């Protein structure tokens, strides 16, 4: 299998799906770049994250649409096109920009099918580039998947490696429901083997990254990598962990998490967001309700603090949950009597 990084996997998937289905269209700011500029170079960038490169030359301006800076209209247009037969893949350059198009996400796209009594379908994919780790400060670093997971009608996906990026994006584009596809900016260069050709990863199936009997660790997005480090280090000290990475937050693979907790009796959740109404607390709440009788220790949440995201390197490092904090939480859970 070829080895590629997340960026390349996403790019390849967009190429494959646009080739396969002429109803797939891509739109966003600078997905191609160069429109209306003096160079005459029509693909001036191919997406600032490099994920949409080569699409315009291959599929043309009708299907690869550069837009002004106009997120409400981008998401609304993607939705409108998808309501009448297209499968639009819209890019939000930074997930933080949901603020300027939130209505289209949570009042429109999410609710069409229900409000219209099941008669509409809106197979739109919104790609949201998210996460801290690049010192982009408070308005360009947030992990806002909790806000969209809270919204009935949306599906929420958080791939962490290149193979999943491909498999989940393929599934997202073919899915008949709206999908919020979160790509962590600090994971774009992560490489792994990626199946060739058509490859789908189903929604609602978590992956088990490590196996162990002492503590269940659930980690979202980039946190899975930090958790891996912590888990591996603790394994050497004789503490064995299940490490679960949900892959999709909505639908959620509750069963895998609950089964694991029924085995270990201890749960640590790791989430890059601040704690309140987070995925961390969401999972804690589910487990405290559905696997209570198995629990042998307090549920440990490892999250960012209840603060905006700071700029300076030293501050952002302190802000983010890292392997040390995760390790401490696991040890605490494992040691609780």
């Amino acid at each position, binding site marked *: 299998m070829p080895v590629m990084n997340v960026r390349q996997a996403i790019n390849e998937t967009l190429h494959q799906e646009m080739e396969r289905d002429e109803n797939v269209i891509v739109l966003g700011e600078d997905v191609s770049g160069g429109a209306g500029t003096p160079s005459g170079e029509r693909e001036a960038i191919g997406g600032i994250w490099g994920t949409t490169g080569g699409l315009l030359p291959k599929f043309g301006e009708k299907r690869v649409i550069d837009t002004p800076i106009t997120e409400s209209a981008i998401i609304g247009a993607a939705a409108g096109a998808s309501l009448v037969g297209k499968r639009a893949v819209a890019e939000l350059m930074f997930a933080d920009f949901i603020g300027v198009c939130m209505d289209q996400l949570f009042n429109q796209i999410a609710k069409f099918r229900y409000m*219209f009594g099941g008669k509409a379908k809106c197979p739109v994919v919104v790609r949201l580039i998210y996460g801290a780790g690049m010192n982009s400060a408070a308005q360009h670093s947030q992990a806002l998947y909790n806000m969209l997971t809270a919204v009935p009608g949306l599906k929420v996906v958080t791939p962490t490696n290149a193979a999943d990026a491909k498999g989940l994006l393929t599934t997202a584009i073919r899915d008949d429901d709206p999908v919020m596809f979160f790509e962590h900016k600090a994971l774009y260069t992560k490489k792994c083997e990626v199946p060739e050709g058509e490859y789908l990863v189903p929604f609602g199936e978590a992956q088990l990254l490590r196996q162990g009997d002492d503590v269940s660790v659930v980690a979202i997005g980039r946190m899975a990598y930090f958790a891996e480090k912590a888990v591996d280090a603790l394994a050497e000290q004789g503490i064995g962990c299940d490490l679960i990475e949900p892959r999709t937050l909505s639908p959620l693979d509750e069963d895998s998490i609950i089964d694991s907790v029924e085995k270990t009796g201890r749960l640590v959740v790791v989430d890059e967001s601040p704690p309140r109404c987070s995925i961390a607390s969401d999972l804690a709440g589910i487990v405290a309700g559905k696997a209570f009788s198995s629990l042998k220790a307090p549920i440990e949440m490892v999250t960012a603090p209840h603060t905006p995201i700071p700029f300076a390197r030293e501050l952002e490092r302190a802000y983010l949950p890292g392997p040390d904090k995760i390790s401490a939480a696991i040890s605490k859970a494992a040691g609780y009597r």
Partner: protein
Amino acid sequence: MEKQDLLRVYRSMKTIREFEERLHLEIQTGEIAGFTHLYSGQEASAVGVCDALSKDDYIVSTHRGHGHCIAKGCDVKGMMLEIYGRAGGLCKGKGGSMHIADFDVGMMGANAIVGGGPPLAVGAAIAAGIDGNGNVAVAFGGDGSSNQGTVFEAMNLAVVLKAPALFVFENNGYGEHTGDEYAVGAESIQARSAAFGMLSLAADGNDFFDVYEKTAQALEHARAGRGPVSLELQTQRYFGHFEGDPQKYRAAGEVEKARQEDDCLLRFRARVTGDGSLTEAELDAVDAEVLALIDEAVAEARQAPAPTPDDVLTDVYVSY
């Protein structure tokens, strides 16, 4: 226009009128829940625009959507059932007055968020442009909505992409309790739209023929790939913003005067009987037909079964 066309137009306008006047009464019985915004007075706008469209063209509507729905061809009984919250309603009772949609006739949904619709219309227009099928997408909106950021964005994006979209601004003078004179800082909505770089027209929204002709002109422009069009229609609403509105913002006698002197149905009738296209008797026959339909619709809606509690959980996703 042929006689049958004129009759169809009249029937459509009259159906809207009677639907709304009847709802105004029925709402007072307490049987109808939620917010209802009536369209009475504006019929020539909805029908003037929609009669110029083909079935395959799209419309996106607003909180005040009944008129647009009927004009675009939604089933009147299905609408009434929906407004009564019945299981057999167009949206199974899940949407209600503010969320009626019928994709089979190109009606992409009423929308309870002011400014929520225009970006969607641009999307449908983009899709039509890709498919090259000549379809146009119409975004209805009010004077009040014209100040919402999403509407401005939709207009600019449509211009940039030369999308075949038509932005119809029905200016009934008020956004809730506030006048357009106050809320629209521009000289006019038409002038502001023009400055976005698109063909921008205006019509007398109480004159079916004027609306129809301007819409036809707009459609020709959009279908020819020359980009979006804006159309401002001056019109009037006969009832309050919502049912129960004290309407302290009205001038004394304002609505009575409008009903007597500038009513779109009366004006239509006068013109088509005046020039001999239709007779009073022919129009009266339509009136009777329409009244019977609305009576039936209300009677059926009253007796129709409500949805069951289990229905709450369906139609959230295609699959989950």
